[in-house]
């Protein structure tokens, strides 16, 4: 059942993005930024935390990036106030950002653009 929920949830998010893209003049950059903000709002409302427990696939879309940022920032605030907010904002997302930078750098040294 977890597999089913993961499939449906990620699928629906991507379908919504596709619908927005086809019916408006927004670029892909606009849509991903919008989705990150939506993710942190869903985290703020406590919705993302609830649906998160239905499957691991929920951690894949960019909305979970906003949710993870919000959650770790709030955790930091609870631990050590406003300073904690600054200190632990990137705690959970650091893995993704670091991996992107490192792998991207290595690949850019080795590969050349196609055209």
């Amino acid at each position, binding site marked *: 059942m977890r597999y089913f929920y993961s499939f449906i949830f990620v*699928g629906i998010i*991507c379908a919504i993005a596709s619908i927005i893209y086809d019916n408006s003049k927004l670029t892909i950059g606009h849509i991903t930024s919008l989705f990150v903000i939506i993710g942190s709002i869903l985290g703020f409302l406590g919705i993302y935390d609830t649906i998160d427990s239905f499957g691991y696939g929920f951690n894949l879309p960019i909305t979970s990036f906003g949710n993870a940022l919000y959650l770790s920032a709030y955790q930091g605030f609870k631990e050590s106030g406003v300073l904690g907010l600054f200190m632990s904002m990137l705690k959970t997302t650091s893995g993704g950002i670091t991996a992107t930078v490192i792998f991207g750098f290595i690949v850019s040294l080795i590969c050349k653009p196609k055209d």
Partner: protein
Amino acid sequence: MTEDKYLKLVKENTLKENTLKNTFISFLSGGVLGLMAEALTNIYMKILYLEESSALTLMTITFIFIAVILTGLGSFDDLVKKYRFGLLIPITGFASSVASSLMDYKNEGTITGLGANMFKLAGAVILYGIVSAFLLALIKGVFYG
């Protein structure tokens, strides 16, 4: 029916069909990636005995790795044309945008090329993610405890 009217009608209908098809393809490809994420996390937890949070991070890194390699080989764009938003909305889109801007600006030097342009597209995601998370966490912390 005049020719103009006919052409207009054709255009409207083909556009609608494409939109529907695009939505469906995005749904399917996104769903398959979600399935893979669930399967990978379960495998990491069972085989490598990782905690849930570590397994989730490793799963994200795996997807980033695959996306970056595909971008390096130049096939990510072709895949996006085929499978559309199923590949762009998951973390793979973020990773691929960083890798492709790194590759594109490689010739302009290591600092002014690579360094200055690496987050050209992904910067918006980080900026608005952090700003919105900061404000919301502050509101939640101050007003709701």
